């Protein structure tokens, strides 16, 4: 596979074309907008919590295939997980897309997120992949302003 094919794997293209959880949660506990001023990607992530468990999570917005697929995969993976698990996944995901070393134990937790392994070959696209996650992090840390990747 070429680097481009590794970046745009079928699963990513599928999540871009048919994003999962692509809706607003009307009675969300928290929501936050994430924005990348460089390319104009803009998403709002919604979270409904049950204690510290993510009961429901969704997003709306627009941007490139990488950012949209990332939001879609993120939301489908985090439903039912604890906030702590979500934070842990972001740490591993961040290592994955920036090309840092990942232990076998960490790799097991990645699951579907593994499809973003191609991102690390494209430094200009790391922000696209991590924008939804940064937005979620902002929600967890209870920021109520727009999160920017800049």
């Amino acid at each position: 596979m070429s680097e481009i094919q590794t970046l745009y794997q079928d699963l990513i293209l599928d999540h871009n074309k048919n994003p999962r959880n692509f809706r607003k949660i009307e009675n969300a506990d928290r929501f936050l907008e994430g924005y990348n001023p460089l390319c104009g990607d803009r998403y709002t992530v919604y979270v409904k919590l049950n204690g510290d468990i993510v009961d429901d999570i969704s997003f709306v917005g627009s941007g490139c295939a990488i950012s949209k697929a990332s939001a879609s995969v993120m939301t489908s993976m985090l439903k039912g997980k604890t906030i702590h698990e979500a934070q842990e996944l972001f740490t591993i995901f961040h290592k994955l897309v920036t090309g840092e070393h990942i232990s076998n134990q960490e790799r097991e937790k990645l699951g579907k997120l593994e499809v973003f392994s191609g991102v690390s070959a494209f430094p200009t696209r790391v922000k696209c992949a991590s924008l939804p996650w940064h937005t979620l992090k902002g929600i967890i840390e209870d920021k109520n302003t727009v999160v920017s990747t800049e």
Partner: protein
Amino acid sequence: MLLGNKRLFSISEVRDDFPILSKTIRNGKRLIYLDNAATTQKPQCVIDSQRHFYESENANIHRGVHALSEIATEKYERSRELVRSFINARSRREVIFTRGATEGINLVAATFGRANVQENDEIVISHLEHHSNIVPWQLLCQEKSAKLRIIPMNENGELLLDEFTKMLTKRTKLVAVTYASNALGTVTPVKEIVQIAHAHGVPVLVDAAQAMLHFRVDVQALDIDFLVFSAHKMCGPTGVGVLYGRESILNTMPPYQSGGDMIRSVTFEKTLFNELPYKFEAGTPNIAGVIGLGVAIEYLTQFDWSTIAMYEKELLTYATEQVKAINGVRIIGTAAEKVGVLSFLIENIHPHDVGTILDEEGIAVRAGHHCAQPVMEHFGIPATTRASFAFYTTKEEIDYLVRGIHKVKEVFHV
């Protein structure tokens, strides 16, 4: 080959003048450089001029009594004369060196603007502007409680002159418009705009950042009051640009930055400012850059420009037809008068993804809002992919672009 006293334009010879154009990138892919609106490549003579200056002529200007300083000063001032003649200014006093188009606009806003704009006054710009010709005026309007008025445009990206005419009032203090849009390529009717504005007694600033590479600008024929441009968008070095100002207006303006070179005498009680243009050139300037700009102008003016203009027109027509013919591709910016800028969208594929895949093929384009968010908003889109051409761009490179777009569609299975 020379024809009369002009060098005959031959695309292959011209390409040999630009060393970077024969380089490879991304593991041996041929470089297809289609990002000329962001910055152009530099011919060997400009590159050599930088090295030569630092190797053999480096000194500060207007200061030393020694021979090197004399040489550096002479070279620097020679560039000013080259610029003067290039834009047909009346006098060298009207040619001020800046860091670029952005600084030129900020200079006029901070001096002419601050001195002339009062509460409820109006400044007119257009919907096509680059952020650098929006934000300085916005800040000035905020500071002075003045209003910013916007000349609207149509679906092709052409300004509506009738609306512009209606917009001018006794309160209009300045019109600031682009000559060519970096996002769409639209060439605006500057001559008419100046005539209309002058009929209302309003001076005009023209942002020629995207114009200088493509056609000659004559400030007297157009009767322009202020003109700004950047050297790096016309084969010169980065970090240097020009503000042309009508002498009678420049004389009334307070200084911009203050410090060395811009003064005639300083005591702790009082400072006498230097004469034009030095009054607006505080501190040690980008001497090598200014000299490089002069060399770039000499490079450009060795050609008979009408031949190049014809070539560029053919190139843009070819590119437009080829790209438009691809299924699912839409061109953004279809003005009748355009420079070599092709902004486009591929259905259901974000420009950022297009840019990455083209880059993998060695094709350099820009993806984004091109520092012209209001233009994007006008078309209801967040971004475009932009291919922009120069006189050294070839039809073959456009064919690469077309193949690249097909590749993008292939990757996305559309």
